[in-house]
């Protein structure tokens, strides 16, 4: 029985390790932030899930397993939250997704995503990006105050 558990847990650990490496390679190879997020989420779900499942088989029904379940739960909840927040902040800052046909994609994305508003060059430049972000806020507030008053 012990040998079956050992083999099973080795398979799970190996698969988890493979997915961790795949995720890291994806984060390096993908062309833009949104696809990199997609690659990074592999580590949070499959990579961590399989690794922790393998470790749980080794630990048996002890307090260690309970802690592992807690870690897994936190990772499962925090991963999507952090990923969603990164994507939202990137979109708000005007980082454009890398697309093959920019015109069609702009139509598909609707008003939330204005291609003309953010030229591609500024997006690549962190400093300009943040300055534009800082500049946007007071202007937006002033516009709102005008609309109200």
């Amino acid at each position, binding site marked *: 029985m012990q040998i079956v558990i*050992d083999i099973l*847990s*080795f398979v799970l*650990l*190996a698969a*988890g*390790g493979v997915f*961790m*490496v795949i*995720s*890291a*390679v994806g*984060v*390096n190879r993908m062309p833009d*932030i949104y696809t*990199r*997020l997609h690659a*990074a989420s592999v*580590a*949070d779900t499959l*990579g*961590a899930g399989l*690794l*922790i499942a*393998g*470790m749980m088989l*080794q*630990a048996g029904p002890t307090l*260690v397993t309970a*802690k*592992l379940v807690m*870690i897994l739960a*936190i*990772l499962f909840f*925090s*991963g999507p*939250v*952090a990923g969603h*927040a*990164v994507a*939202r*902040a*990137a979109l*708000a*800052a*005007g*980082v454009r997704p890398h697309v093959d046909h920019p015109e069609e994609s702009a139509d598909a994305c609707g008003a939330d995503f204005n291609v003309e508003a953010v030229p591609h060059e500024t*997006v*690549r430049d*962190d400093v300009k*990006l*943040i300055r534009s972000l*800082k500049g*946007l*806020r007071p*202007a*937006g*507030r002033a*516009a*709102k105050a005008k609309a109200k008053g």
Partner: protein
Amino acid sequence: MFVAATLAVLVSLVLLVVRALKGPTVFDRLVAANSIGTDAILLLAVVGFLTGRPEFLDIAITYALLNLIGTLAVLKYFRFGDLAHSGGEEPED
């Protein structure tokens, strides 16, 4: 067998640090930083099993929470430009 898992986590750590250094935008670095946090948690757990003392997993739980809070703080700063913002009102963008 934990050696293999440790090596895999270390390899992915190295690759993620490469992405964090390359950028190009702040958000790419953030994604890398978040994944490095996940990797650090898993490394801690795997090393605990490797050395035969898996009792330190409480620290891993704390790391997971800190990782989330750190990422969200940075992102809130980017979204609202201020950490004290209540977040109820959407900024114009």
